[in-house]
């Protein structure tokens, strides 16, 4: 796929970086002049993915790193890849079940993947126990003028 623009960033898996990560992705996507709603959807989906890495992948560890790649693809599609080298997910299907959480004591709603799925056009999760998880999302951004770009 022809990449028109790209941003790569790594940062420590600390909860204070959740806000930074979603803001960074939205700042990159702003070049498309997207609708307020699409930008809010993107912000929420990124927040969920990064929070999953911090809460689940690196639970109890403070040396984790999260790698984010954002690409601008043709037709106003934003590609977001969020990767960690954490504990991995043994059962992806179970993890993606709405309201399932492996950390209910921390008041996690178990809706991270559900929100990612609902707020983007496609979601792919690859994971291996012991080596980490990679989430890829794609979203076609509508333009503020009301037209989807070409």
């Amino acid at each position, binding site marked *: 796929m022809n990449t028109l623009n790209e941003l790569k960033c790594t940062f420590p898996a600390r*909860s*204070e970086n*959740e*806000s930074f990560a*979603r803001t960074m992705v939205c700042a990159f996507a702003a070049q498309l002049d997207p609708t307020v*709603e699409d930008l*809010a*959807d993107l*912000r*929420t989906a990124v*927040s*969920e993915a990064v*929070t999953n890495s*911090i*809460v689940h992948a690196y639970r109890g560890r403070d040396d984790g790193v999260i790698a984010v790649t954002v690409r601008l693809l043709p037709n106003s599609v934003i590609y977001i890849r969020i990767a960690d080298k954490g504990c991995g997910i043994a059962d992806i299907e179970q993890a993606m079940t709405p309201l399932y959480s492996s950390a209910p004591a*921390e*008041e*996690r*709603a178990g*809706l*991270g993947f*559900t*929100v990612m799925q*609902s*707020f983007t056009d496609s979601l792919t999760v690859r994971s291996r126990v012991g080596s980490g998880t990679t989430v890829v999302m794609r979203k076609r951004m509508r333009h503020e003028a009301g037209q989807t770009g070409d």
Partner: protein
Amino acid sequence: MVELKAEPQKLTAYLSGEIDHHRAKELREQIDLAVREQLPPVVVLDFRRVTFMDSSGIGLIMGRARLMEEYGGVLEIHNPSPQIRKVLRISGADRLAVLRNTKQTGSGKEQEHEYAQ
């Protein structure tokens, strides 16, 4: 962070800024401390000054709804933005609490209506 207003029958928590996993714990602790002290029949979470919320906010709402259930109180969610309403709808959390819009209108009159479910 959160501004708490206690009335005889009601405790209102005016939340502000961004609600994510990083901030949820502190909000939860502050709200629960006031709720357990007062055991108000109605607890209102007012979102008028909240600019962003992800599913960590849903966890916050679900946890407070459970706490209210313990002693028979009612949880209300006031003035969520369109982004927050969307997250609420997806989670079904809009069925755990009464949703209201109570923001002042141009006429200065307090508006109150329940959202269509």
